[in-house]
């Protein structure tokens, strides 16, 4: 039986991925959701830090196996969404309901890629890819790490430490690390916003090609990025969450195509419109 979703997910270069005799596969009986299939995500509720409301009440739904861009100005709690879904939102009290739409726990099914590459400076590129396996006590697969570095265009750089790599190359390593984690859900927290425009476009293309098929929630404040990559585009402002129409062409769209530019313009206008509102003292009522 073919998998319900397409894409490169699960196929590591140079490594034949044979499915284990998996008791979770649908034909083997109704034993609950397949933990390898990308689930949808939902987040319904409000988040606070102490007495201050970060966002909410909001209702966010992320389609399974699709690329959803969450666009919004700084300070509206976009990253908090990701931290809540990743289970690392320390000090934030969340009232409501969040997790995978299939009802199974999200822990172990999520990878996170952030603006800061978060590479460990004392490890080579190769070992930075293997840190997840080491932390979990699995046997690190050096060959797979090198193959993954090759896929992101860093062949021959496996032995370099982060200091010896450029910003764009470090973000490639971070992408390779996200890929080798091989999780059905990938949370992107402005991963390309610190890169120059050419590097950013190339990284977007690479990420789009390699991550397609997984459930992606991509937080960004760059309308051009959302217009290029989003299958779905959500706008988060102090007034709440709005779904906006993405361009009709399939992502990733060329950054200079008229349709992409037009969408970028439209998204920018939305952002400008919401910036006009006084951002101070958003009351709970005003956010619904």
């Amino acid at each position, binding site marked *: 039986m073919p998998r319900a979703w397409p894409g490169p997910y699960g196929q590591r270069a140079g490594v034949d991925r044979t499915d284990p005799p998996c008791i979770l596969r649908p034909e083997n009986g109704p034993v609950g959701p397949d933990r390898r299939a990308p689930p949808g995500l939902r987040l319904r509720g409000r988040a606070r830090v102490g007495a201050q409301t970060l966002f909410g009440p909001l209702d966010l739904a992320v389609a399974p196996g699709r690329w959803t861009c969450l666009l919004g100005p700084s300070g509206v709690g976009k990253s908090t969404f990701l*931290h809540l879904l*990743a*289970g*690392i939102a*320390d000090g934030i009290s969340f009232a409501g309901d969040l997790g995978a739409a299939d009802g199974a726990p999200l*822990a*172990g099914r*999520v*990878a*996170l890629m*952030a603006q*800061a590459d*978060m590479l*460990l*400076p*004392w490890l080579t590129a190769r070992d930075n890819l293997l*840190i*997840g396996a*080491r*932390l*979990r*006590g699995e046997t690190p697969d050096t060959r797979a790490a090198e193959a993954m570095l090759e896929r992101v265009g860093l062949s021959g750089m496996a032995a370099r*430490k982060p*200091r*010896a790599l450029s910003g764009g190359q470090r973000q490639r390593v971070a992408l390779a690390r996200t890929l080798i*984690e091989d999780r059905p859900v990938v949370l992107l927290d402005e991963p390309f916003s610190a890169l120059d425009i050419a590097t950013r476009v190339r990284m977007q293309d690479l990420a789009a090609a390699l991550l397609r098929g997984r459930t992606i929630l991509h937080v960004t404040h760059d309308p051009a990025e959302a217009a290029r990559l989003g299958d779905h585009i959500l706008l988060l402002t102090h007034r709440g969450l709005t779904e906006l129409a993405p361009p009709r062409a399939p992502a990733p769209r060329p950054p200079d195509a008229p349709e992409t530019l037009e969408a970028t313009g439209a998204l920018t206008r939305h952002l400008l419109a919401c910036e006009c509102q006084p951002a101070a003292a958003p009351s709970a009522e005003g956010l619904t």
Partner: protein
Amino acid sequence: MKALRPALPLLLGLVLWQGAVWLWQVPSFILPGPVRVAAALVDNAGLIAGHAAVTGLEVALGLGLGAVLGWLSAVALALSPAARGAIGPILVFTQAVPVFALAPILTLWFGYGLGSKVAMALLIIYFPVTSSFLDALLQTPAPWLAQARVMGGGGWRQMWYLRIPAALPGFLSGLKLAAVYAPIGAVIGEWVGASRGLGYLMLLANGRAKTDLMFAALVVLAVLAIALHRAVDHLAAAALRRRFG
């Protein structure tokens, strides 16, 4: 010329010292001039070298053991908040009690030989090593820890693969401090009760009004301490370069 620049103030100091001794005709058992000290150093080279070797061994053992014990304690304390609460105050206590006050009892327990001096050096460096390494272990950058949590690693593996390597600079700065303190510990131990070592030699020379020998031993001790400090500094810098370069 550049290499000589740090030596210039030292040279000037020596000249002033010798000048003062000549000018005021200070008796040599009160303050011998540098020339006389140098002569004593040469005359007693074998004697001083023998005692310096003993002190050097005490310092090296104290430093090594203190570094290992400090490392282990810091990791154990970092792993267990309960242990931090219980043992933290004791740790501060070891530093608050003047080591001079403990020297006699350590001599009683560990004897006149090497043991009590190593214990002394160890005691004096244990706190700086432990506390600076522990601080560093508790300050692993939050995004790295978050990433590790998302990846699904925890417990001792997170300690071994993430927090300990990330805390290396903290451990090394504790070690650099320890290199300065360790000779003090060993010499205090020798003062309180010993039959060998530079501290013992200084006390002996002082008692017999051989002030020039006392100063000669002091010079050797200072050179030893500075050399140790420099060596640890260089090793630490090399380790950091290797790790992060």
